[in-house]
């Protein structure tokens, strides 16, 4: 074999496997994980959403004809699905800004606190690591008709009460989720705050900036990358809301006012044996969340 040929082969190999083939080997476990846990199920879900599909025992011969957009049409025509997407929009409108503002405020407070720092960090983090089922119990104790909150509010307590009130139930769940996840987002902000140079605060104070002004002019822009992350993560976890409508409001009540798309997917796909329409809801949700995350990124980053 001639030399130029050998070089050509090698360069083709290099082009195929990269200059450091061992690197490929090192990332393989993660790639396999991604393929097995994300790519394959997502691919299957997309496939299912275009077919008349249901789960069967192995070896059962069934016809699974291609049905084009039928599942999507059925799903989009369904008022329950539209209501669920509307519910989740209300949820995100309350939950995401609330999460960002409170997490940032608490993190800046914690960043300055000298005493009891560990205690406070742990206190904020506990709801995040506690099982939803247990925390939902606490929330029920507080927000049912004869719950703690209504006892305190007395005559101004809402009627019907929080969790059976069609206008209040989704905001209530949004506050619950914001509270539950706050610890995690506070940690993200705390880490980001460590990276804001002290000199900037000193310079601001030399220029005569008030505390509030230096928060606005130094802290907020300083943690912007963290804010992008917080907004996107809160949007994604929020759009996948399931446990709260499942447990807190007894399957999306009152009257479907707290049904989320994922709860509907569970009902349709798992309970009722229609994984094809459930997959169509799932694909729509993935697309929606993807677009929302892109928009968030552009908007918060300011590019």
């Amino acid at each position: 074999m001639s030399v130029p040929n050998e070089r050509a082969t090698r360069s083709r190999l290099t082009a195929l496997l990269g200059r450091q083939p061992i690197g490929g080997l090192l990332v393989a476990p993660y790639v396999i994980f991604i393929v097995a846990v994300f790519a394959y199920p997502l691919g299957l879900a997309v496939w299912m959403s275009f077919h008349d599909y249901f789960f069967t025992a192995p070896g059962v011969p069934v016809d699974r004809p291609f049905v084009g957009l039928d599942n999507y049409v059925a799903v989009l025509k369904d008022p329950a699905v539209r209501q669920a997407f509307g519910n989740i929009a209300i949820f995100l409108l309350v939950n995401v800004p609330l999460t960002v503002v409170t997490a940032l405020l608490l993190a800046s407070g914690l960043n300055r606190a000298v005493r009891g720092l560990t205690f406070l960090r742990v206190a904020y983090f506990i709801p995040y690591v506690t099982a939803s089922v247990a925390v939902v119990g606490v929330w029920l104790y507080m927000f049912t008709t004869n719950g703690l909150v209504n006892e305190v509010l007395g005559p101004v307590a809402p009627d019907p009460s929080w969790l059976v009130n069609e206008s209040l139930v989704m905001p209530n769940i949004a506050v619950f989720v914001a509270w539950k996840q706050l610890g995690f987002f506070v940690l993200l902000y705390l880490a980001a705050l460590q990276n804001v140079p002290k000199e900037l605060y000193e310079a601001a104070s030399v220029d005569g900036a008030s505390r509030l002004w230096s928060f606005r002019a130094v802290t907020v822009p300083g943690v912007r990358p963290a804010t992008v992350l917080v907004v996107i993560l809160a949007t994604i976890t929020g759009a996948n809301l399931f446990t709260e409508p499942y447990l807190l409001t007894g399957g999306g009540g009152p009257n479907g006012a707290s049904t989320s798309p994922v709860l509907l997917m569970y009902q349709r796909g798992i309970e009722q044996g229609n994984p094809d329409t459930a997959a169509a809801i799932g694909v729509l949700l993935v697309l929606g969340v993807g677009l929302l995350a892109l928009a968030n990124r552009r908007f918060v980053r300011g590019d």
Partner: protein
Amino acid sequence: MNPRRTVIAAGLVAVCLTATACGGGDGGGDAGAKENTATGPIKVWLSNNEAEIKWGEAMVEAWNAEHPDEEITAQEIPAGNSSEEVIGAAITAGNAPCLIFNTAPVAVSQFQKQGGLVSLSSFEGGDDYIEERTGEAAEQYRSEDGELYQMPWKSNPVMIFYNKALMKKAGVDPENPPLATYDEFLATSQKIVDSGAAQAAIWPAPSSEFYQSWFDFYPLFAAESDGQQLVEDGEAQFDSDAGQSVADFWSQMYEKGLSQKEAYNGDSFADGKAAMAIVGPWAISVYGDKVDWGAVPVPTSSGAPAEEVYTFSDAKNVAMYTACKNRGTAWEVLKFATGEEQDGALLELTGQMPLRQDLPGAFPEYFEKNPTYTTFAEQAARTVEVPNVPNSIEIWQTFRDGWSESVIFGKTDAATGLADAAEEVNGLAGQS
């Protein structure tokens, strides 16, 4: 195109193709006569109810002692949100056991569609055995293809349980509370709430799970319609005079605050928050010592005599799953476990009613010893099951959503709620 990208893209395409290949199953497999005779060890699942496990373990022990070559291994249904979900997943994965002593009739059509159930009619004498044991009531469990894919096993016919102490507090005769007609029931309920004896007269879960209608609408509908099912011959039955009067009754209960629109976290009856509850015979052992209780049939508009009133059966059945290899043994075990001796043991240990003809006549000693169960045993002769139709769970969810909107939350009137739900249910019941 960059070659490395090509490799990645090709990999992804391969993954998607595998996905689709896995998605479409192939091959054959039919329950033939030959398959039905294989014998050997089998696995069974039991419900995770303590008393039933006790019964199951004793049953397995008795069988294994006589059949060393065909041993049963029993375990509880693995944990999950619901048994139906776990069983559905096991069917798909091909690792369901031979028999599950906790198969919900509502899920049978779905399991059957999944190819997960063995027709019990395909066994020699299968239909005869089931019909002889259960009588006419067995017909309710027959699938649309005319075969039986479930063995009617035990029922929990529901009745109205009431708390005598709270009735007394409300100024109602605790030994004979007027609860037979809707008017009586409403008046008694009003007294309970007005007197402050309890927060609610009766507190069925107002939440949206598909099965909740089995414990508010369905028993009363069964009674009012003299034993009609939700769907018969592919047609919704509830958009009728009977359905309408049941819906009107519950609408009034909610409107007047006699039933609460918010779910109670816990057991409202045990906690004294509600003076009545719709329960099956399991309640006797649960409330037995805690509450001084009485039981009456569910009300009807005209106050039909107790011995004519139908109710919801709340049955759990046994089914054989296609993953089972030793079906011959499984069938023998099924007969053994539903024989008179084991049925007696089940009644003794769990207080649940074997789905047998003339129950009080079959176990006279038991009912003499436990007279409180007699009422339920008599009621067990007049029960209505959930319809065994395609899309059964979806039908119940549709009904529940309509009920929730109209009867519980009063967004539309009950007539519109029932009519809209009936139209949708007719569409679903007509599909295969």
